[in-house]
């Protein structure tokens, strides 16, 4: 077939396209993923029972700030990465900012505490539950995010996969924070930050397989 014939066919009855579709799909995936993560936390794990105490509220707020900051920056970049050449407009450093902030705060809080408290502050009561729950809760949000990105045309599949995982991990952490009763900054830095990084790595590995077009 000649290329001219293909072009003639493609130029027949051209429909206007929706330029907002990419952003809309990523936004939609984010909302659906968030609802799923929160509902799973509610049903399977349950919301923490001491939520009315000031200390619990402060730490919930802190965890949510970290998770929402992570998701916000990552989602903006993901919407760019979903378009050809979008990787030109992404700085991974900015996406890492919430992690740097929480690590700094964790360091400061460790520095102010006696070293005999460190073990309890870092390991908490349930580090294993946190380590396992965040990646598991992230599975459905990850699938929804991948669905949205597949409707577009990413040209850097490793990086796009990584950001899909980062968004899903962050969304999952928002849900899990409603359940988790381990209230210390080093714990959040390690056992929230760590699993979210794991989700990001998984996304980077899966990206080239899931996102080809």
């Amino acid at each position, binding site marked *: 077939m000649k290329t001219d014939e293909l072009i003639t066919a493609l130029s*027949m009855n*051209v429909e206007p396209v929706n*330029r907002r579709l990419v952003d809309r799909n990523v936004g939609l995936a984010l909302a659906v993923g968030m609802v799923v993560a929160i509902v799973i936390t509610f049903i399977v794990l349950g919301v923490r029972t001491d939520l009315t105490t000031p200390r619990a509220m402060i730490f919930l707020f802190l965890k949510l700030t970290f998770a929402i900051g992570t998701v916000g920056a990552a989602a903006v970049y993901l919407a760019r990465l979903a378009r050809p050449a979008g990787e030109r407009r992404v700085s991974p450093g900015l996406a890492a900012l919430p992690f740097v902030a929480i690590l700094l705060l964790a360091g400061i809080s460790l520095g102010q505490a006696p070293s005999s408290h460190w073990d309890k502050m870092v390991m908490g009561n349930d580090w294993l539950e946190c380590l396992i729950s965040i990646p598991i809760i992230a599975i459905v949000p990850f699938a929804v995010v991948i669905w949205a990105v597949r409707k577009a*045309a990413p040209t850097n599949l490793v990086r796009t996969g990584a950001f899909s995982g980062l968004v899903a991990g962050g969304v999952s952490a928002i849900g899990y924070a409603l359940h988790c009763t381990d209230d210390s900054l080093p714990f959040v830095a390690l056992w929230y930050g760590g699993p979210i990084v794991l989700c990001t790595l998984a996304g980077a590995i899966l990206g080239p397989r899931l996102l080809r077009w």
Partner: protein
Amino acid sequence: MTTTETELKALMLASQEGDAAAHRLLLERLSRHLRAYYKGKLVKIGQGAAEAEDLVQEAVLAIHIQRHTYDPEEPLTPWVHAVARYKLIDFLRRNRASLANVPIDEANEVTANDDHLGTESSFDLRRLLKHLPEKMQCSIEAVKLDGLSVAEAARRCGISESGVKVNIHRGLKALAALIAQRTQT
């Protein structure tokens, strides 16, 4: 900003609004740039004009299908280059050729040269269509090959007008996947 960028971007914006003449002109001009680009790349790994033409058509189809992903806030040249390069890398991976043999390129390289000497590609749209599900086949044939309106196509294929549009979109994506399979040597 170069005149090529300005002209092509204006065409793309009109094409996104549904201007068929602008869309046609855009694809024609881009296909000439793509041909020069792919011929230049493939000659280094000992592939000829026919393989280059396959790639030109893959890229033209991709640009058509993905035109909604172009953000008017951004220049068009890097967008076209990213699509062209993505399709090249995909082609090389399918054919187990290493990217290391292909020269590195710059974002403006795609639109730097022009080549209007098109040859035949190795596939045929009508023949490939036969592999698609019936509704996609009917919708694409009616609207894209026979030039019917979406309303007429809806009557011919016995589905709704939005059904025709969805089937064309999905069908073209399926065609792109078929072409990618066939150009595996």
